[in-house]
């Protein structure tokens, strides 16, 4: 069975990264925006694992990095969701268009 080449994987991860970025900029729902950010972080994970496996299999730097990213992404999401909940309490909405008290 022939192996999937590295470029294919990188293509997926890069696409994922930019889909995430696009989602962050276009979506107006905060939870969706948070998901978009997670998408970006996951594309990085794919990158790390792929590089580690294909290019530098002798040590495990990339895999370790991935584990840390997953952990931190969880922490980040926890804080972000706490903030969003708090925001919901005062604004009664989680649409970013409603949170525009401060401009310029």
């Amino acid at each position: 069975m022939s192996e999937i080449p590295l470029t294919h994987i990188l293509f997926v991860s890069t696409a994922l990264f930019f889909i995430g970025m696009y989602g962050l900029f276009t979506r107006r729902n905060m939870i969706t925006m948070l998901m978009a950010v997670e998408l970006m972080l996951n594309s990085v994970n794919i990158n790390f694992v792929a590089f580690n496996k294909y290019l530098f299999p002798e040590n495990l730097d990339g895999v370790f990095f991935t584990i840390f990213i997953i952990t931190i992404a969880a922490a980040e999401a926890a804080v972000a969701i706490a903030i969003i909940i708090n925001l919901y309490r005062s604004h009664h909405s989680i649409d970013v268009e409603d949170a525009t008290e401060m401009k310029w």
Partner: protein
Amino acid sequence: MLNDFFILMKFELLPAVIFFVLLFIKVGTAELSNASIIRLANILLFINLVAGFFYNKDGGMFGDMFHTNALIVLQKSILNLGIFIVSLQAEAWLRTHKHVIEFYLLLLSSLMGMFFMISGANLLMFYLGLELATIPLAALANFDLEKRKSSEAAMKLIMSSAFSSGLLLFGISLMYGTTGTLGFAQLPALLNGSNLQVFAFVLLFAGFAFKISVVPFHLWTADVYEGAPVPVTSFLSVVSKGAFIFVFASVLYTVFKPLADTWYHMLFLLSVLTMVIGNLFALRQQNIKRMLAFSSIAQMGFILIGISGSSQAGTASAVYFVLVYVFTNLAAFGVVALVSAQTGKEDITDYKGFHATNPVLAWVLAIALFSLAGVPPTAGFFGKFFLIMAGAAKQNYWLITIAALNMIVSLYYYLNLVKALFMDANASPVPKITFGVYAKLAIVICIAGMVLSGLASVVYEYIYNLSTGF
């Protein structure tokens, strides 16, 4: 060996210890009053600051993931000083707050993150420290739980910091892909300036630019500064910015030295953009915190000028500027914090006739503003001067001229505020502000710092000599 561990990691361990002491008090049964918690926390932070000056050693640990040297010790001490002053100034606001201990817990974990980030000699360690430094900040920004602006600010902060760490991580992953290493020591030799590496570097750079709010990545700054409680804003603008600048300078000079041609041009362009846009937006602000936010963006532009210069003078001037900035900006925010805590007024027009009712605070704010504007004899002048000197070493006189023009623009809005403080009449000025011993101590430290760190040239000389390491 164990001894080494404690000495090398002293700066990280001390906040951890204080963190746990406060945590035990929180979960314990004893009900301490706010006043005694604040007193305890300030004493501990003071011990933390003082302890930083003794028994320091150069060295690395954890298979070269962590390193420390005299310059890093100095940088950490500057941050310690900053957090101590912030904590002193926070007293007026925390006195009646329900969650005093949590404030300190978040503050300390953020500080610990910054220390790990500064000491990190590996992209992984650096990234962990960075996240530990930023995530608590978002929670801190939301610390006025019932205020709409506060949660909005926190939301903007966490979203933009998540986005920026996404960029940063993608850059790191590509950097790893092209070099196969994450260690700062190994990276420079493997950088060859290939397109992919430059792309990775640009992403990394953008991640940094977000954190130190360089135009065009500055959009979150003003909103977060305005919405967050004032002590948090001052922490964000001084301590957190300072930490990122330290790391930024050292990463550029040590790790990305081979790409110097690339980043010199980027720095040049971004510093001009940052100064111009920061100043132009500062001109039209009505809220004093927003004005200080945009002015701090403009100051970042000046720091970039310094960093774009040669490594020794660049590092030294950036570190020196941060030191001066700690005193200066905290003096300004200290006054704003007092006024905001007691009257809730934050508009520039509210400050009209401030001198008539609060002469001491008016003078403090005026000196701080002159220092921010870079007018002698304040330390701010020397800070800007050294930055410009470092940048001028490349004989780029356009950059200096643009910087000088920007100083004039910035002087205009600082002077406008000074004018409001001293000269404009106001039917209902800010009433007489009473301030306790904490705020007084903070003001004395800031004023002494603003005057002495400029005139006493030994300070700069000391930093300059430490900066030879690169």
